[in-house]
């Protein structure tokens, strides 16, 4: 077992304990929900990291056919499984965010740019799975899936980048709302938040590689 896997587990364990037990700043409205920073935000970092991994595998798949050789179909397996695990983290991020939103905004769902960005991301990758599911030939499936993955990832990043400039957001970190950042994020919180992000990314990456190995065994 590689060291980063153990480190990931240890960091997640530490962030679970420290996230619930350590002191946090007392802010109006947020109150104890500020602890959600340790659980909600790392989900998004992990999702983006895994989607980045999926993108890299898709690019490598396409390039493996460059010299007229057969496509390296293992790359397709990796791209698909990384995207799947990323979507699990997206759902976890969504649910932790919805619980938090109910406590602070008073509603589970609002037409907030951050939420729209999430919805679009989920829809895009759902479409990616549907696309892969509708092709039988493995080579064609891998090629079409990879092409869509690259196309969709770039548009999704652009979308997440421009959306907050289109409309006001209630989300912390936007439009002068009490943010999980700058002056609110004191050094005590950083000591939990950054390990939590790293720990979840390592753990998510590990889960994805395990799924890839399982898929290899099944094929």
């Amino acid at each position, binding site marked *: 077992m590689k060291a980063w896997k153990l480190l990931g587990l240890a960091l997640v364990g530490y962030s679970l304990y420290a996230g619930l037990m350590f002191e946090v700043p007392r802010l109006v409205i947020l109150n104890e929900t500020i602890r959600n920073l340790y659980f909600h935000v790392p989900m998004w970092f992990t999702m983006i990291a895994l989607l980045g991994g999926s993108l890299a595998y898709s690019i490598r798949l396409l390039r493996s056919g460059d010299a007229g050789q057969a496509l390296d179909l293992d790359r397709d397996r990796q791209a698909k499984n990384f995207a799947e695990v990323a979507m699990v983290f997206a759902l976890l991020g969504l649910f932790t965010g919805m619980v938090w939103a109910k406590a602070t905004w008073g509603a589970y769902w609002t037409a907030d740019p951050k939420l729209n960005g999430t919805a679009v991301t989920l829809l*895009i990758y759902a479409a990616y799975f549907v696309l892969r599911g509708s092709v039988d030939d493995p080579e*064609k499936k891998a090629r079409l899936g990879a092409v869509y993955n690259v*196309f969709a990832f770039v548009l999704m990043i652009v979308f997440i980048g421009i959306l907050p400039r*289109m409309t006001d957001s209630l989300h912390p970190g936007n439009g002068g709302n009490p943010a999980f950042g700058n002056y609110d994020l004191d050094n005590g919180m950083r000591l939990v938040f950054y390990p939590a992000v790293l720990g979840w990314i390592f753990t998510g990456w590990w889960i994805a590689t395990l799924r890839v190995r399982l898929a290899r065994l099944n094929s």
Partner: protein
Amino acid sequence: MVRAKILAQFIRWEWALEYRRSNGWFLPVLFAAMVGYLVSLLVRQPNPVQWLSLLWITLVFSALQTATRSFSASPSEWIYLNQLARPSELLLGKSITTALNTVFVAWTGVFLFGLWLGWPRPEGLDAFPIWTFLTSITLGAVAMSTTLSFTAALSSKLSRNTGVMAILSLPLLLPTLLVAMRSSKLALLGEPWTVLYPNWLGELALSALPLALGALLFPYLWRS
């Protein structure tokens, strides 16, 4: 990399195969007209924002209809095309003709909406700001069409592609739609072009990005 002569040849080819046959270009126009008429029966006297939202919903689905057909050629036609053009030229040529089609359909849609639902008249305006509004609609239609050309190319490779095209395209169209909606809403409220042009630049950027990405990825798609 892209030869202008081939593109011109491509558009002539499209002309011969698409526009001279009335069942080619007429289908999406008829679709836009039918949806527009349906909307005008269901909604009476919408306010300007509702009018605009209904218009964009109609335009999105009409554009989808237009683009879905753009890569539906018979195998022998593809063999001819592949001999004629490089993949990037093929995508560019198809994107240009799809953009022209979409703009034509969009203009028809706007005109029919004006005819059947009336032109919205925001307060304090004595005339409908037709030029800024049409520019916003046109740029929005072009931006939609470049994304749609690529997803159409993708789904043309599927044997069972009914419905997949819409599922692939709609999430990717959201950014374009939001920018186009904002731009046309501001135009409708009578803002001058000096206020509107950042949105127009956004629409142009959203047309160029899928084209650039498509040019990079299309050769990989076409090899299969």
